[in-house]
């Protein structure tokens, strides 16, 4: 759908994907090891995969009609609120996760 909301959806999913991948890589050493061996450094792997995920969802949502029912579900204002909530929740979750990981 040729609408900004396609990129709002991609940003929302990329934020959740990045947070899940980060916590998954810390919780499962095999995932972190794979990121390191495939990309040279786990952080580079997370950056590359998150960017590829964002690009793929953006392309699917903007260039095709496949995701129109999801994109059109909310107006831009509500999409903005969900993106902001996802970012705030992901940031707090990552901070709490690393604090617990370090101190417990």
């Amino acid at each position: 759908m040729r609408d900004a909301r396609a990129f709002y959806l991609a940003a929302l999913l990329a934020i959740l994907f990045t947070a899940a991948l980060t916590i998954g890589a810390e919780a499962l050493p095999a995932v972190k090891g794979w990121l390191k061996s495939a990309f040279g450094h786990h952080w580079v792997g997370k950056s590359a995969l998150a960017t590829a995920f964002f690009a793929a969802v953006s392309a699917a949502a903007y260039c095709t009609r496949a995701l129109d029912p999801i994109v059109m579900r909310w107006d831009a204002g509500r999409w903005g609120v969900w993106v902001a909530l996802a970012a705030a929740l992901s940031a707090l979750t990552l901070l709490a996760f690393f604090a617990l990981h370090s101190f417990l």
Partner: protein
Amino acid sequence: MEGAGRTMSYQLLVGPHAFLGEAGGLAFLWTFVEMLKPDEPRARRAMLASALGVAFLILSWAIAGYAYTTTYGTQVKPVIKAGPLPWAHDVVMEAKEHIFLLIPFIAFACAAGIRLGGNKIMVDARLRFSILLLSALVVLLVFLMAGLGFIVSTGARTALEAMA
């Protein structure tokens, strides 16, 4: 003194990273101000500001990635972890390097909202609200990164002082 030398090349990279990151944040603050009451010239400036902001943040990301993967792990991390504030790496830097990854996606979505919204951003209050919200979020996250970066630097500085 030897410890100070070990962190020098990291400092050379972290300066441009911080400068570009904060320039990106300021570009989105500019975007936010232009979008408060947009007319055609303000909408054009918001488009320019958000595009600049995205470019600055991507450059900051690239420099941060290079510094983090080539020098931070070998030069700075061991110093912080041996110092009195090891949590400056274990908690703050670990959280910072991953929260940072969220910012370019939000910034890109915000810039896309302005670019694709066109003249609609002057009449569609919901679209304008989303752009104001996302640009404010980018500004807040960039300043959060600056604050977390200060704590990481403090961790390294106190470790070097303890070594001296």
